[in-house]
């Protein structure tokens, strides 16, 4: 991978992130009500013109939008995401508390979904068009079509009625507090997330496996008299790995912004729930901070996936130079 290529990609990524910041700023300025009405609620109506002007000055709302943007953006670069109007806590603290929950949830869901998806994708592809392929594909389509909120709702209701266990009641136990207690809380939401994820991984694996299975080197491997297991794992799966890794990486990026419904149903204090609370309480700073963070993480994860892709596939690496 040439240094020039890397520099170009990093510059492109920086440009995208700047664009993200502009979009977030513009969209959130369009939110109904301003900081003052959000802070004071109906009391805002009783303010005199002078009081309102003083407050607008205090919150920096009297400056031009461009000035406001650069003030805000400057703060961002210094790691200042603002303060939650609702609680007075810095947004970076709130995110610091919420991020580990979401990341753990995403990692756990991946750990569950990827082996299942790869295994069933291989199973389906081993005899394409057969009964096994048909049933695995049918289950996969169902896994994609079943909305997360339905699976989550059914899981919570089922746990409550069958085991008198209510995952959404009680307080959150962090990994540091109790490993087993935390795992018990996180397992079911992770399983819910894993349903759609496993289906996606399965479909990618199936088509990548079929693609690789049809290539010449597989025929050669079989011709050499290698065992079927060796052909399948060493030759086919190894080569099908690149699209699978890419898909898993992209899905991980999506998960960081896509655990919202599950966090809400299972009452987990992750990023999604923080964002939703921010929206419901018109807490600009929180919504801005979380949206920015997730989008930035998404961009960085995609960049990393692209790099891994290039490392895994020697054909995309050279461009006449050695990495």
């Amino acid at each position, binding site marked *: 991978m040439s240094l020039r290529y890397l520099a170009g990609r990093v510059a492109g990524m920086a*440009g995208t992130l700047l664009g993200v910041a502009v979009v977030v700023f513009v969209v959130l300025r369009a939110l109904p009500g301003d900081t003052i009405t959000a802070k004071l609620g109906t009391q805002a109506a009783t303010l005199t013109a002078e009081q309102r002007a003083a407050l607008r000055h205090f919150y920096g709302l009297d400056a031009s939008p461009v000035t406001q943007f650069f003030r805000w953006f400057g703060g961002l670069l210094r790691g200042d995401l603002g303060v939650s109007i609702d609680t007075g806590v810095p947004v970076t603290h709130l995110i610091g508390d919420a991020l580990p929950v979401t990341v753990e949830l995403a990692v756990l869901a991946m750990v569950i979904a990827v082996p299942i998806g790869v295994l069933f994708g291989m199973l389906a592809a081993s005899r394409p068009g057969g009964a096994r392929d048909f049933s695995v594909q049918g289950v996969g389509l169902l896994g994609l079509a079943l909305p997360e909120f339905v699976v989550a*709702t059914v899981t919570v209701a089922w746990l409550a009625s069958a085991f008198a266990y209510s995952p959404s009641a009680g307080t959150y136990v962090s990994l540091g507090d109790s490993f087993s207690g935390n795992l018990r809380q996180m397992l079911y939401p992770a399983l819910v997330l894993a349903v759609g994820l496993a289906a996606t991984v399965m479909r990618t694996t199936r088509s990548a496996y079929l693609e690789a299975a049809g290539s010449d080197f597989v025929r050669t491997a079989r011709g050499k008299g290698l065992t079927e297991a060796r052909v399948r794992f060493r030759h086919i799966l190894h080569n099908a790995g690149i699209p699978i890794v890419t898909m898993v990486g992209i899905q991980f*990026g999506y998960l960081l912004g896509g655990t919202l419904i599950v966090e*809400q149903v299972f009452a987990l204090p992750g990023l999604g729930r923080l964002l939703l609370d921010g929206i419901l309480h018109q807490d600009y700073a929180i*919504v801005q901070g979380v949206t920015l963070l997730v989008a930035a993480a998404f961009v960085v994860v995609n960049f990393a996936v692209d790099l891994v892709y290039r490392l895994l596939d020697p054909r995309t690496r050279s461009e006449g130079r050695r990495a």
Partner: protein
Amino acid sequence: MTQEMPPAAAAVVPAAPRTAGQPSLPRRILADRNGLIGVVLIGALALIALASLVHLGQDPLAQHQSGQLAGPSGAHWLGTDQFGRDIAARVAAGIFASLRVALVSVALATVIGGLLGVLSGFAGGILDAVVGRLTDVLFAFPATLLALALVAALGHGWFNTAVAIAVVYTPIFVRVARGPVLTVRESEYVRAGRVLGFSRSRLLFRHVLPNVSAPIAVQVALALSWAILTEAGLSFLGLGTQPPNPSLGLMVADSRNFFPDAWWTLLFPALAVVVAVVGLNLIGDGLRNALDPRTVRR
């Protein structure tokens, strides 16, 4: 421009000009097993939605004091909810609401995204660079997150929800349309048209657009299914359709407290979403097979 393509781009199929003697597109979709099942499922849902539109059956908002959370019966085919409202009527109205948001959002995304993609691919230069950057920025947001933030900014209401979903899916259509244009632009028939002195708009609309419509058509079916899921998800979170108006996502959210005893409060709205999503995906598969002569049944 970043080089990776969104997962949606996996749906891209090569442009396949129709040749003489081939059956028409609807026939070819119906000849495909998946396509046929998909058309039947979506057709059934569309009929149910239409029935609710002309107020066939019960009023979805009418509360029957006597029969709250009553199971399916002759009077209420799919049972009643916690306020004694007829679930069949509410599911039908919910399907209508879902389809309305999905159709409007995808129509907006297809027209705007498709046009921007075709134009930027065909014209190249500054336009292509600007559109490309904008697309990159919008792609930087996970879909749910962007839809959520936009709904929060635009406010409730079905049209605002549709606009939010449209903004999320527009960049996908830009990329899906732009890719094949780059190839078609250099094809011999377009070059021949240039030599013959055809106007740009004639080249674009008569020669380029028909030949890039195949991948766009497949994408429309897939985007419709995501739009239905997104709308239902937003409603579930309380940010889409507002009560007492019926919405499939909201019905599932409400059923939480009554499931599994009153299973019908959850099963039927959930089933409607699943049928819609499966049906649209199958139509997408059917379209892909019908449009790509090289598709081998795998």
